[in-house]
């Protein structure tokens, strides 16, 4: 906008929102760069939706400040609304209208009419792969198509930034993958994508990921940099017959930082890679024989668990 170094698309400074005594978002600060896919990762109730609603001007911050495209969320919500796309957690198109009717209505809400509208509607049905369902009631579309329709409907007015709140909830993995291909295309076209998710695989596709837990932002970095909190070889996977028992034993061992259960397997974070060799023997001693131990590259979930454990350790 003003040339020179690109202005951040979103800036949050100590952004806070309380509901009575409950602190939903607690002094969160971050910047989103233009053109990046910015992921907000956290479990339900972590404060992701509250943050996104504040950024979209739907909810006033209790304290702190935030700006979107240079406009203040507290005082310039109208300017922001005109320039952003937003897809809420719940599917929010009209089920009893057709694809085309929905597009025309939502486009009209952003001031698109006539030839301009027709052009954007055409773009939308092509992009969402709905050329053959223009006149179908939205109710009759499969979930994945509806989600894509909701996304393109939020993009009709060509906003430079789009906020997606858990956009893939309740759709099958194939539809999720196709949805994310669409997000990649948007980013490639220069749009900023702010997306919340609780799926780790989706977070892996983000350029940078913010980890939210209990209203606080615990870490923010690119996925490889987040994973580098663990030095090479310090995350191992342990497979054995009695994982619960093994977990209790492992937690007592010196040199073991954290143990987390992943289904039948244990992910163990070590203070020193050298400790890994002795794990199997220690487990034999408590009756968990034939344990296998192998070094793995940490997943985002390992990072997430580690970061939460560290934050809760600090709080205690």
């Amino acid at each position: 906008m003003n040339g020179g170094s690109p202005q951040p698309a979103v800036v949050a400074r100590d952004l806070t929102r309380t509901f009575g005594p409950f602190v939903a978002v607690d002094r969160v600060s971050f910047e989103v760069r233009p053109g990046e896919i910015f992921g907000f990762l956290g479990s339900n109730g972590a404060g992701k939706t509250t943050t996104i609603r504040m950024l979209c001007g739907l909810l006033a911050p209790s304290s702190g400040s935030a700006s979107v495209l240079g406009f203040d969320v507290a005082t310039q919500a109208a300017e922001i609304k005109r320039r952003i796309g937003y897809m809420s957690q719940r599917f929010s198109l009209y089920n009893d209208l057709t694809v085309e009717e929905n597009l025309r209505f939502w486009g009209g809400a952003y001031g698109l009419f006539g030839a301009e509208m027709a052009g954007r509607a055409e773009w939308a049905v092509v992009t969402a792969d709905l050329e053959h369902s223009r006149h179908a009631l939205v109710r009759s579309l499969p979930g994945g198509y509806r989600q894509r329709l909701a996304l393109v409907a939020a993009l009709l007015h060509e906003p430079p930034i789009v906020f997606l709140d858990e956009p893939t909830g309740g759709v099958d993995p194939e539809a999720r993958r196709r949805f994310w291909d669409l997000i990649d295309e948007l980013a490639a076209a220069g749009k900023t994508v702010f997306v919340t998710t609780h799926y780790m695989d989706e977070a892996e596709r983000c350029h940078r990921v913010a980890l939210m837990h209990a209203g606080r932002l615990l870490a923010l970095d690119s996925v490889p940099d987040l994973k580098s909190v663990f030095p090479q070889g310090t995350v191992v996977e342990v497979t054995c017959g009695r994982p619960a028992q093994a977990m209790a034993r492992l937690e007592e061992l010196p040199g073991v930082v954290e143990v987390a259960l992943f289904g039948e397997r244990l992910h163990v974070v070590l203070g020193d890679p050298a400790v890994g060799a002795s794990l199997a023997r220690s487990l034999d001693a408590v009756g968990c024989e034939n344990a296998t131990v192998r070094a793995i590259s940490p997943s985002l979930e390992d990072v997430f668990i580690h970061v939460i454990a560290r934050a809760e350790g600090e709080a205690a």
Partner: protein
Amino acid sequence: MGNGDRGSRAGRAVRTLVNILVKELLQLRRDPKILPILFIAPVIQLTLLGYAATTDIKRVELAVCDLDRTAASRRLADRFTSSAYFRVTANVDSQEQFDPLLQSGRARVALTIPAGFEAERSAGRPGRVQLVADGADAMSGTIGLAYAATVLQDASVAAGTVPLVSLRPTVLYNPDLVSRNYMVPGILGLIIMIMTMMLTAMAVVRESELGTMEQLLVTPLTPGQLIVGKLIPYALVGLVEVFTVLPVVLFWFRVPLRGSLLTLLLLTLPYMLCTLGLGLFISTLAQTQQQAMMLSAFVFILPQMLLSGFAFPIQNMPAFFQALTYLVPLRYYLVILRGVFLKGVGLAVLWPQALALVVMGVAILGLARLRFRRRLG
């Protein structure tokens, strides 16, 4: 800023509004339940209420006990028998026999002509009769006594007695005092309220329930545009309602429309301003469509029925409740309806009611809009 700029701004506002209206009307058209709700339910309501809500008492059941058994007493009894007001259900020989008749409701009024009735008359003194009425059915009882007084007065006149005054009452606008003529237009007011208020409340709540309201709020559409976009379609629904129900009122119940239809429609608009505003207000109180329906029915419709003068005359209410009636939109609309239908009057007479409705409508809408905003904030 040039004229062209302003023009295009107005053009944009109109297109924005049309866009919302088109969407609302499309949704109404797609709703499979809407046709029966709009066209069948009101006609049934009107028909049922039109027949049930009548306070006319015709042919009060009468028991006669003639103890005099003379020509004069028989003449008097015949006057009751032949009157259109009474149906003689029993002729008994003693007053003791009245009790079972009155208890069972076979008689509402009992007439006794005592022995010596003719003798008194011959002696130049007024004859004395006794009337007993059933107070448990107060309405029939009182009306029965009033009818009897009329019959007795006529009898006196026929007998050549000159009464102190001769009453010749004339009833204007509804000469036969047919209660249907003033009840049925009232039902029209009730139906308009139910339809516009309930449907508006439910339509707004539905958007919140489905999550589309949140999506609407991130668009540049203002709360004012959203509200107007919701109210206009349901105002149209209200007018459609008038045209659906009016033929039944005019041609089935034969209520005369002495004023102009245009006046009626024109004065219906400020009333709908109130009912639509109340609908919007209810939508800010309710979380679900069901709650919206319950709130409409019990908190808003029932008190309006009771306090508008629809069911009970306002003049008979205690002062506190009389004061409350001034807050009830239907009160004013009832005056308008009865005025236009029966008296054939127009704005020249009904402007205070219209003004009251406009003021109330604006106040209700303002309040609803304030709540609408706050709830979203």
